[in-house]
């Protein structure tokens, strides 16, 4: 068997996913954050953005960063089925990244949410964008979600009042391990969509252009004195 043939065998079967249409959100600071799907060829920039956070234990950045790093590599090397990546960019600079996976027509698997620009609810907006894609675009009925930090637990489990399915373990379990699985159902999403999810489409040409080329942050609030 040739290497190319083996490579084909190594790749999971993919379902063509409906694209996530870009949108723009005005953050409280007045800055415009373009939210759009990342392209596979941007993986290097995304990995370079995440890499410095692997060494930050505060607020569990280390575990989220290292897992997201692996997810992005898995996406880049075609080792994860139906993964999608959404980025938020302010003037092109990456403000946050979310990863997720379409499992079936009924189920989505939320992977990680990483916020770089803090204090403006960037993570909350990107998480909402991810749920919007799962439930509104891809038409799934529910999304499985876990949290790896107290911040995540507060933002998703408590604020969204997610359904706790931990009692159904191991029948219901998130792919990220045996941690308790929570679920955003369509009913829950419809109850919170208007207060959690925002953004304007189509994105004005100028804003879209600003996010065409993603830029790695030159500073991180999580790493004082950081120099690339």
């Amino acid at each position, binding site marked *: 068997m040739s290497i190319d043939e083996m490579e084909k065998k190594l790749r999971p079967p993919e379902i063509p996913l409906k694209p996530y249409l870009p949108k723009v959100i005005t953050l409280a600071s007045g800055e415009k954050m373009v939210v759009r799907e990342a392209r596979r060829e941007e993986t290097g920039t995304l990995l370079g953005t995440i890499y410095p956070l692997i060494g930050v234990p505060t607020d569990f950045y280390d575990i989220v960063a290292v897992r997201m790093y692996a997810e992005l590599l898995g996406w880049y090397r075609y080792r994860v089925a139906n993964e999608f990546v959404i980025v938020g960019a302010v003037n092109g600079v990456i403000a946050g990244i979310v990863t997720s996976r379409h499992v079936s027509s009924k189920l989505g698997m939320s992977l990680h949410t990483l916020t770089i620009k803090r*204090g403006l609810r960037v993570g909350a907006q990107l998480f909402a964008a991810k749920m919007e894609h799962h439930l509104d675009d891809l038409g799934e009925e529910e999304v499985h979600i876990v949290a790896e930090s107290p911040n995540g637990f*507060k933002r998703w489990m408590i604020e969204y009042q997610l359904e706790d399915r931990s009692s159904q373990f191991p029948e219901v379990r998130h792919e990220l391990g045996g941690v308790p699985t929570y679920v955003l159902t369509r009913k829950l999403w419809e109850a919170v969509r208007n207060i959690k999810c925002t953004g304007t489409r189509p994105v004005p040409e100028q804003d879209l252009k600003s996010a065409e080329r993603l830029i790695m942050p030159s500073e991180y609030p999580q790493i004082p004195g950081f120099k690339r």
Partner: protein
Amino acid sequence: MPANVGIVGIGHTRFGNSSEYDLADVMAYAASDALQDAEFLERRREIDQVIVGNMASGLFCHQSAVASSLVSRMDMEPVPAELVENGPASGASAIKIGYMAVASGMADIVLVVGGEVMRKVSGWIATDHVATMLHTEAEYNMGLTLPAFGGMFTRLYMEKYGLTERDLALLAVKNHRNGARNTYAHIQLPCTIEAIADGPDAAVVNNYVAEPLRMYSTCPVSDGAAALLLVNMDSPKARDFKKRPVRIAGVASATDTHCVHNRKDPLRLEAVRLAAEKAYRMAGVGPKDISFAELHDAFSILELAISEEVGFFERGKSFLAVRRGETDIGGRLPINTSGGLKAKGHPVGATGVSQAVELVRQLRGEAEEGRQVKNPKYGMSVNFGGFGNNVVALICAKGED
């Protein structure tokens, strides 16, 4: 004749998330900062008394006797140390007790420290802990919280005076602008009126906390500490300090009914008015003499209501002054130059002391560029305990006054 009391040292931690630290360490940081400012760190055992303001370390940190803990952490034994608790006004009450100790002649040098670490628990639990200061049967057990009170108070004010949510957002823009220039502020991000009130994303970016109160009209849950070194200005010991003291010209407190529904008019903050009147009398000044003020804006509506009760504006008119920019830095009467509780943060037990630190910084001319009030003479702070049922007002003056 009471002694003149001056502030010769100030200290402050950066407010925000200090949940990985012990409360006594956070307080010790601010205390050391104040002692260094007064060039008195090496002589700290000569201090006559330590007074600590803290609201609920037992609930937030499962820790009690924090005054004793602080003294030990500072290696200050055998200096006497006591704790003062008055809800979110614990800090200003600690200043008042410190003032009384010096003015009465019991002590010449007093270290006042206010501190709280609230973020060891979730925001929801912290909100619940703070709500325990409400009337147990009539309020707390009915599910009331401070944001709920803030929301109802805002609604009443809106209906009576025509205040809008946009007016509240203007306050947030002002205070975030000030906080962005304050080294010690929890939130140092400016916000725009377009983003939090006028634009298409505003309803989500600035979501409701307790309608009509939105996130940008509500203070964050913060950790932090602040400290002051008080000295008897009439004592020979006052000469040991190089910096000119900022004089405590007036300090007073008052109480109101614990149950808000027992008040004749729920929009009136009688304890604020009475505390301010007493402080003005003590200082021999009136509202027109105040150059700037720090007012307890745990919810933005309180900045307006308090500014009216202390006589800065006619009732129901303060928001019009905000629209005109009168309370901006550079305006007729700058309010919450530190960023207020909204942007600087609100570690409940620390807030009153933090407000006093801001008065001193402004009166010394030591505020950051763009945040300094021009030639201030008198600064006033109001620290609000409960839902206005135990309030402390403080007036500080430049030393030469």
